[in-house]
């Protein structure tokens, strides 16, 4: 017999809470969001138990989050680029040249700064980045979850990586400059 919904949610709860916290950037809202999404996913999962639990739960979390944002008059997925504007696939990672090797102090410093600048991203970028890079969902699945075509999910994912790397790059530069002045 498979695990119960409660067992499964217990196993994934820390990850789901981290996701909710990342989306909302607010502990109280993250808890409310997770509770609402769990009830929603519980009913979905009860109807079709052959579904992937984590994906069902993430889908419920994302749709509940987007609904709550839209009720507040915000749309995390408002168009990020003008129609027809093409994202230039050229610059990801250039902020960190030379890119430090894993295990080196520079790498650890960079990882630390990237961790800090998640909160500086737009809500939509954070959402997409979590789904595509942390959950490692394919762009087609990400698009289904957030309600955009696969190509748009892909472009938004690229943009989010770029934004994150640029924000971390800026923060590192400022720190380095500040350190030099000091």
């Amino acid at each position, binding site marked *: *017999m498979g695990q119960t919904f409660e067992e499964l949610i217990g196993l994934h*709860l820390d990850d789901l809470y981290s996701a909710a916290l990342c989306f909302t950037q607010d*502990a109280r809202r993250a808890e409310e969001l*997770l509770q609402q999404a769990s009830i929603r996913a519980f009913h979905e999962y009860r109807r079709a138990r052959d579904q992937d639990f984590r994906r069902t739960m993430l889908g419920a979390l994302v749709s509940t989050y987007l609904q709550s944002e839209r009720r507040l008059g915000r749309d995390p997925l408002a168009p990020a680029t003008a129609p027809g504007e093409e994202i230039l696939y*050229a610059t990801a990672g250039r902020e960190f040249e030379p890119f430090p090797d894993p295990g080196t102090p520079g790498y650890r410093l960079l990882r630390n700064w990237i961790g800090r600048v998640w909160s500086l991203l737009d809500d939509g970028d954070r959402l997409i*980045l979590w789904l595509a890079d942390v959950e490692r969902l394919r762009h087609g699945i990400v698009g289904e979850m957030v309600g955009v075509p696969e190509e748009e999910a892909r472009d938004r994912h690229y943009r989010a*990586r770029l934004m994150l790397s640029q924000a971390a790059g800026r923060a590192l530069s400022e720190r380095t400059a500040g350190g030099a002045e000091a």
Partner: protein
Amino acid sequence: MDCTEVKRVLWPADVLRVSDSELEAALEHAEDCPDCGHFLEADRRLARLIRESVPREPAPAELRERLYTALARERAGSPGPRRRFRFGRWPTVAGALAVGTVVGAAIYWWGGQGAMPSATAFAEDYLRRVVEQEALVSGDPQEVSAFFARELGVALPPPVVPGYELQRATICLMNGRRGGVVEYAAGDRSFSYYLVPQDRPVTRRGNRVDVRMVDDSVTDPPFALGRARGLGVATWWDEEHRHALVGDLPVAELERLAPLFIDATLRL
């Protein structure tokens, strides 16, 4: 294929793709192009950094409790094929079938092959509690009922058992499922009643006793009786719950007590 197109095809660099002619052309270009190679390597490293840097927070313990409580309420209140047990509604043929079910269940029950909590699991939980003295709430019947409503979504009024006093109620974890336990005592004798909500309607199998299947023409008890780990155990189930009485009591005593609980739980 120029560099921009190659980057479009090969991005993100950390994802496996199904090979096709476009992909092969892009890979061929990237092998010989330092700019594209550098871009892809930087992107791979960036993706790794993003995954490693993700902000993670453990869920607060209070959230976990609230979530389980909300799910228990939802489980109790959610519409579904919830048929209530009624003695006398089944035709005589069903009654005859039920006799077979009961006898079969009594034979197979102690095989303990079912995925649901076995008699041994109930007995072991009982023994753990005796050792650990894990009391959670008082023994007041109204408080117990409210406690279970809050914790399990099941407002279970503990039945009055002649000769025994209600002692306390606790929450158990039975094969990962939260259940309720009501403890009774009389002098140096004690027993516990277990109620474990099931995740989905229970399917009929050989080692179960479904109280719904018992017609009032049936004289055999609508529960299975036996001993496990030196304790007497009576078990039965309905569509959404597993029930058990466990205690250091003679089987005959459990046989006397079980109908009181079956009657009470039919009102759930």
